[in-house]
């Protein structure tokens, strides 16, 4: 049986746009003999039951996630196709620790550089998904990847890189000065706002340096990160992350610039490894149309075992499209995710019952709330007309009526005024015109009638 590795499609001349997929490719390329595995640029996580890529398929068995793939490959070959065996203790520990470090600290950097930064995202990353995914999917995938990336980097306080979130209208306050008389304001802050990367330069540099420095130090002059002679799983992972930091040419190249300027050693290592492991730059056509058979890519195809993806034609793409839409609907998406998690994490029947009752309650509650919201919205928009009560047209006296509660409170004083006026009238019973103010305090407010006698 041939193992099939399903990945996100190629980008930037690398075999995949995702660091974990790159790591999995590198691992299989190094560990598994040629002809025993195939590489398929599916670019569709919904295909695998765990909803993530990379995914390894062996007949009916799907393995999701690159660490699980490493384990499965070792298990499948009865310990033959392993990279990490035989490290001395300290190297093994370093391998574990630095893998965690590469992943945990590298992900935010890639998120910031490829997805959060508006300029890089709109001009480079988003268009790339058009080349690796069939037609309607690029409308859904990149925004959801970007939303996750933003969530992951929220704690860094660098959301200013994303200029889309700022309300352009809110910044321009409405002014009574006509358009033609206004001066265009090129203040320092507005110039910086136009280019948020330079604004956050110091923090981004610090983040990047903190990431590359430990890697540079642990590598030293060795050919591989932890070992003198052996390609390890850490090298796969680091290659995945570092190549996605170094290779893409972006409009805002802060990450690759820092890397090239301060860590030329790591850059050289990354470039060598890309040539060794991936066989140099990869074109999207190599992966998606391996049967197109033009001469330039023949060598490429020989290097990585590409197979054309079969995404089930229009029906397959349509169902994926619908399921990703369902995932992005607030409540439905949450329920779908919950089911997915329960399927995977093997819980006992007891917990299943317990949690499913909870989910039931939550589902009913959210449906009720959703209905309420929808009906409220319809009322608010006037889709369902409110039964029009007799709203009396109060034109008569606008003085106290218009003040609502305050008017009601004022009625106390108005009554007092009334009493005063009466006393006055009694005092000067026969005089010139007397202002007679009649005040009636009722539940609907206060009515004042002025009569000038």
């Amino acid at each position, binding site marked *: 049986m041939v193992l099939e590795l399903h990945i996100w499609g190629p980008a930037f001349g690398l075999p995949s746009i995702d660091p974990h997929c790159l790591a999995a490719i590198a691992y299989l390329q190094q560990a598994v003999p040629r002809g025993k595995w195939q590489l398929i640029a599916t670019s569709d*996580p919904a295909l695998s039951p765990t909803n993530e890529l990379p995914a390894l398929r062996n007949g009916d068995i799907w393995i999701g996630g690159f660490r699980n793939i490493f384990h499965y490959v070792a298990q499948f070959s009865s310990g033959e196709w392993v990279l990490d065996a035989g490290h001395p203790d300290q190297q093994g520990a370093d391998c*574990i620790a*630095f893998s*965690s470090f590469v992943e945990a600290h590298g992900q935010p950097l890639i998120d910031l550089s490829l997805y959060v930064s508006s300029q890089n995202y709109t001009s480079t990353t988003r268009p790339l998904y058009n080349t690796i995914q069939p037609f309607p999917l690029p409308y859904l995938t990149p925004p959801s990847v970007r939303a996750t990336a933003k969530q992951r980097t929220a704690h860094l306080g660098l959301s200013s890189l994303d200029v889309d979130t700022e309300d352009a209208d809110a910044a321009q306050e409405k002014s009574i000065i006509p358009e033609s008389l206004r001066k265009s304001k090129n203040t320092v802050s507005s110039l910086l706002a136009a280019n948020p990367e330079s604004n956050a330069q110091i923090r981004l540099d610090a983040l990047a340096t903190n990431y590359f420095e430990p890697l540079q*130090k*642990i590598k030293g002059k060795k050919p591989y990160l932890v070992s003198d002679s052996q390609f390890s799983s850490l090298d796969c992972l680091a290659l995945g992350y570092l190549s996605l930091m170094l290779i893409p040419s972006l409009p805002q190249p802060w990450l690759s610039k820092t890397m090239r300027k301060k860590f030329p050693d790591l850059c050289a290592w990354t470039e060598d490894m890309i040539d060794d492991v991936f066989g140099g730059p990869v074109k999207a056509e190599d992966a998606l149309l391996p049967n197109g058979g033009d001469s330039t890519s023949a060598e490429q195809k020989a290097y990585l075992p590409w197979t054309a993806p079969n995404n089930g034609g229009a029906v397959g793409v349509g169902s994926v499209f619908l399921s990703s839409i369902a995932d992005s609907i607030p409540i439905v998406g949450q329920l779908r995710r919950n089911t997915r998690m329960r399927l995977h994490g093997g819980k006992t029947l007891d917990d299943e019952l317990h949690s499913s009752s909870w989910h039931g309650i939550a589902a009913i509650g959210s449906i009720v709330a959703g209905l309420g919201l929808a009906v409220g919205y319809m009322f608010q928009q006037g889709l369902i007309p409110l039964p029009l009560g007799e709203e009396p047209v109060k034109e008569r006296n606008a003085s106290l009526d218009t003040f609502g509660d305050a008017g009601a409170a004022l009625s106390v004083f108005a009554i007092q005024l009334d009493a005063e006026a009466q006393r006055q009238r009694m005092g000067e019973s026969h005089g010139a015109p007397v202002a007679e103010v009649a005040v009636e305090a009722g539940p609907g407010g206060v009515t004042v009638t002025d009569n000038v006698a």
Partner: protein
Amino acid sequence: MYGTIRVPFQGTNYVDGILYIDFFPMPSDKTSDSKDRAPHAGQTSFEQHTSKIRHFFSIPAPVKVLFDKVPVLTYPPNDLPQRAPKPARIPSLYVFIKKEDAAAGRPSYNPSCLKWQTFLNFADINHRLMPSNNHASPSGALPFLLPASKNPQEAPMPIASNKLVKYVEEQGKTVKESSSMRYEAYQSLIDHRIRDAWLYTLYLEPLNFSAVAYHLYVSPTSSNPLVRASISHQLRSAAEAELLKHTAIIDTDDIYSEADKAFEALSILLGEDSWFFGTTEPTLFDASIFAYTQLLLDDELGWQEKKLCRALRRRANLVQHRERLLVRYFGGS
């Protein structure tokens, strides 16, 4: 309508903090009213505009009457309630902890609180522990430190946990930091691998949640079953959201096997040394690992699903490391 109302118009006098508004008789106001409402044909739109604004800002007659009758008083600020914390002569660390444990200076039951509590003990900063919860914190998360107040009139500013190292330096105490190139990498093992496993094992393992987390975080807050149900739901979904940030699905086996590997790596790193990175005194790194090992090895918490605890117990030197710190800085168990 309490508070100060400062409306800049003619006829206002401030006398000893009391606002008096001169009373204009109604008729004069009425005439101006009618004038505003019927603009002359020759008025430009600008004049109309300004007159509209002026009309908007003019004080309506009834309000004037009201202000005349009821002068607006500004009262001095209230005193703090009786139960408000008094300024103390020693700094107070606000953590998740039971009352009786706080008095005895025992470890907190929240890892990030315990980390900084241990760190302050390393730095030999005398402090008292205050049982608290996230709502009390200015940053929304515990722990935070309220420094000793030198001046009883001035309330000291609380210090969030990420500023504590600086605070300790300002107090003239030092906790040595290792400058090993491996520091960041192994720290990420604790902050991600072990933390993820901790979140999973405490909040998402149903047995542990009802046996451990429920008694620590839910039942002390309220006795109302509805409130308790809502809080437990919130806690669990927050933990779930935190785990789902980094992966598409929560893979239990992966979480536990990664935590096991993390303990293995940390155990190799510690080796035969007393403290991590071979330092002579414990550092912040020792505090961060102790925050988890102490709680996982504490039998009083009553863990039901002990997968993570077993993974830790297999590493004898990590267990001894925890014992050493417990005896030296918390006076035994």
